[in-house]
């Protein structure tokens, strides 16, 4: 259980940033492996791309883009906090970062299904 003293928005934003970072780190090796297929085993890559057309996989990709966007906007939020003199609007910044991430991921999902 989350300790009581962690019960506030900034800590949640921190946790989200950490988890999205970890998620991306786990995903990257697989990503590079598949890219590597394009160079060495094009047939296998085609098979993999067919697998990527599956709706469930597209949904999973939505999660991935969401992670990426959360991590990126979360990072921008930190840069804004630490390098611009942003005060007292922390909650707004977090909300903006998360909604921007969500919007971006939704946009991706719409495109993925319309192709």
């Amino acid at each position, binding site marked *: 259980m989350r300790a009581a*003293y962690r019960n506030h928005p900034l800590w949640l*934003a921190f946790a989200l940033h950490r988890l999205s970072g970890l998620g991306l780190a786990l995903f990257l090796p697989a990503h590079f492996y598949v890219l590597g297929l394009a160079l060495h085993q094009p047939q296998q890559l085609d098979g993999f791309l067919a697998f990527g057309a599956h709706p469930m996989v597209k949904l999973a990709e939505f999660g991935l883009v969401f992670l990426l966007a959360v991590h990126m906007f979360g990072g921008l939020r930190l840069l804004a906090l630490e390098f611009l003199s942003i005060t007292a609007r922390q909650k707004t910044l977090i909300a903006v970062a998360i909604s921007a991430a969500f919007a971006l991921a939704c946009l991706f999902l719409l495109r993925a299904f319309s192709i």
Partner: protein
Amino acid sequence: MDVAIWKGDGAGGQYEHFAVPAEDNQTILDVVSWVQQNADPTLSYRFACRVGMCGSCAMMVNGTPRWTCRTHVKKVLKDGQLKVAPLNNLPVVKDLVVDMDPFFDKWIKAGGLHAPSKTRDDDIAAIAPDTDGRQNANAGIECINCSVCYAACDTVRSNPDYLGPAALQRAWTIVNDEKHAARGAVLDLVAQSDGCFNCHSMGSCTAHCPNDLDPMQAIARLKRAAIKHQLAGGGRDA
């Protein structure tokens, strides 16, 4: 109400339960005192002013670090239960008393001592109250060293050598103090490996400071100042 109080020492301990009569106006410190006076005279705890001035009475109350003297039972009681423990992130001496030495040592390590820039024979430097520097310093000088922020910081938890929110906030007030003789040296100190760049801006310090101070923001500004200072060549000849 049912009050669980942590009892033990540096080697370990456990919660003991006490039935404490509820009052209309009752602080956590009142509860702890009641237990010590009526149920368990061996219970050790620390307090002095009882009005949020001295910074000696902080404990974990239902999982959150607080000044026990200024926390009303009503505000924190959960299902008629209260859990009181020694502050996180500091070694326990006995029961609710922690050893504050590491906390204060870090103040010194972060350059918290004053370095005078004038002697008693000089005139007092005139500092305009509305300058940025003075405003920045003002924002942090009401700290009473209670260690609530330090107990809430997960970065201290994972790196016990991290200087922590209070010491770094103190450093930021010094960097903004025109009367201080070694402000560049303080910026060098806080830029070292256990210094301000450890902070993840998770804001638990700011969320829990009972004085409504904002150590997270002080540290954010300290980071910026320290980077500027290093880019300008600071620290090379130190």
